[in-house]
């Protein structure tokens, strides 16, 4: 328990570090949201400086950071200049959409990667193994951007899938079932891109972990004892291979979030990606900070989840860390 508490505390400090870092970057950057207003002759300089004062931009860095922390504690995450609203009210719906996308992509990718990896490890140098190796090598070399654009082309050309967006126009009037169906159809494109983007790494690591596990002396011993290959595979080797895969799960969340950022922009999915891009182009710093911190919260949560899972499945770690 002490170990877990320690990990949670560490993650918390990590998040504080991320937020401090982004505040320092803001401080170093030239210009802010209100500088563009200065160019407008219809807005007087008094108005600009009053606005700056209103949003606290004239205060020194530590004061601004303290104010920001205060607003985080209130659940507001600062204030967006462009939308004239608390950042949290912008972030939550967007974050939900991003989570829907990445969550289903993670689930689907693992559901494909685990059987495929195990199968190619069980039949090493077989047909499936070679095909998988070739397929993943090809996928590994195709950039996420091209995957997304290619799928968009497919969607536009064949009209089988909607070309971007999350809901069809007028979906508000549909029933709950139709709405879900509509959402699912819109999700196919971006989810497919994300799955294809992270599949090669997952499959290859699964295969490597299983091959390692099957080569361990105990697995060979089990084979000489005449235990059926299926039982060795699932009952004996798989639990051993699970350990590195859980670490991979935590790591893959980060790359998935990054890939999702790009995919959302290409497919105009209303997630964190387009919001972040707009905020950067509009120099809306609190939104940028909020989105970045939120993304790191997701990542840190994933890592923590990975730690918990490791402790749950691996008795060696449990003994070592909890003792």
């Amino acid at each position, binding site marked *: 328990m002490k170990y877990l508490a320690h990990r949670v505390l560490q993650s918390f400090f990590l998040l504080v570090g991320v937020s401090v870092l982004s505040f320092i970057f803001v401080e170093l950057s030239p210009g802010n949201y209100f500088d563009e207003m200065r160019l407008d002759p219809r807005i007087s300089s008094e108005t600009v400086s009053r606005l700056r004062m209103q949003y606290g931009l004239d205060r020194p860095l530590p004061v601004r950071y303290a104010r920001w922390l205060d607003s985080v504690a209130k659940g507001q995450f600062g204030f967006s200049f462009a939308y004239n609203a608390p950042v949290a009210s912008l972030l939550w719906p967007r974050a939900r959409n991003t989570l829907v996308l990445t969550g289903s992509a993670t689930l689907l990718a693992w559901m494909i990667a685990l059987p495929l990896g195990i199968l190619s490890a069980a039949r090493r140098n077989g047909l499936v193994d070679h095909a998988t190796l070739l397929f993943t090598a090809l996928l590994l070399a195709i950039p996420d951007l091209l995957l997304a654009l290619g799928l968009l082309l497919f969607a536009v050309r064949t009209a089988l899938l909607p070309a971007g967006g999350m809901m069809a126009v007028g979906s508000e009037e549909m029933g709950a079932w139709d709405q879900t169906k509509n959402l699912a159809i819109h999700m196919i494109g971006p989810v497919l891109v994300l799955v294809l983007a992270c599949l090669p790494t997952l499959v290859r690591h699964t295969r490597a972990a299983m091959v390692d596990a099957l080569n361990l002396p105990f697995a060979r011993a089990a084979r000489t004892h005449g235990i059926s290959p299926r039982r060795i595979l699932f009952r004996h080797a798989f639990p051993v291979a699970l350990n590195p895969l859980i670490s991979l799960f935590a790591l893959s969340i980060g790359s998935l979030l*990054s890939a999702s950022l790009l995919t959302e922009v290409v497919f105009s999915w209303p997630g964190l990606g387009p919001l972040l891009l707009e905020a950067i182009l509009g120099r809306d710093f609190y939104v940028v900070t909020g989105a970045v911190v939120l*993304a790191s919260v997701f990542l840190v949560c994933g890592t923590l989840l990975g730690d918990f899972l490791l402790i749950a499945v691996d008795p060696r770690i449990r003994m070592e860390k909890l003792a």
Partner: protein
Amino acid sequence: MSKGKHFVVPMVCVAAVHLVTFLSGFFAPYDYSEQDRHLPYAPPSTLHFRDAQGTWHWRPSVCALVERPEQFGVYEEDRTRCFPLAFFTRGYRYSAFWLIQSDRHLLAVTPPAKIFLLGSDGYGRDELSRLLYGGRLSLCAGLLAAASSVGLGLLLGTVAGYYGGWCDAIVMRCVELFLALPWLYLLFALRAFLPLHVSPSQAFLLLIAVLGIVGWARPARLIRGIVLSEKERTYVLAARMFGGSDFYLMHQHIAPRTYGLLLTQAALLVPQYILAEVTLSFLGLGVAEPVPSWGNMLAALQQYDVLVSYWWIWAPGFALFLVCINYWRLASAMQVAAEGTAHWQ
């Protein structure tokens, strides 16, 4: 297959791409910003070895394009006006990174015919020329950024591993901080806090700096690990006994042990950084028009009509794929040579 063979093919491919893009001025028939407003989205030119009379020629020729009346972007060749290609002719002046200055070009054709081997973009600019110039920028950004982040990693990793204590603690906390963020978010955040409107050369340097900062953490951690074990080696201790200074030990005895790892890390980072540059420019956060980069060339595909109608605009994507696959193969060949097995195989 022998060990060397794994290296040769990707190495040659990578070197060839870098050389061709480095000499983009020579290989490109036109300057990257030369427009022809009468020929937007012209398809790739056909090379004719037979003229209108049906006589064969060794020297290929290109025919002038005529836009079909009242149909935008649909062209027909005027077979009566064909112009032979000229090789190694003089044209506009170019320089390759201030090293080579010349006005020789591989290919040219007399106007009004235009040689668009890969078609033209929306402003009637030659896609091939832009691909070459854009490749020069994108590939150089990748190389330099990888060099700077590996260099930063080497410096901080060696110092952290060698001195240990609070120095190590600070560097390692920073490493964890940088690894804790999803890299694209980190890249965006860094880019967000830098000025938006910058000149192309400033944007180029800015990109390199930002990419270099984003990726230093992983090499630094790996190098620290090596340094931790290397500094306890007997020959290092012996050199210290002889009175070698800290800098001498690090520079002469410890750092060289990390070079193999550095090279592999660089081969892994370069394609990632090329992709990162392409991503940023694609989203309008990198190098701006008219200077081409593979990213802002691909950005044209965000318009549906371009995405569907003009397949040659995909050329930078295909080039990107080729560069990436060869860098991956190079990196995995290096890993095989260093560790006996690539770590994902």
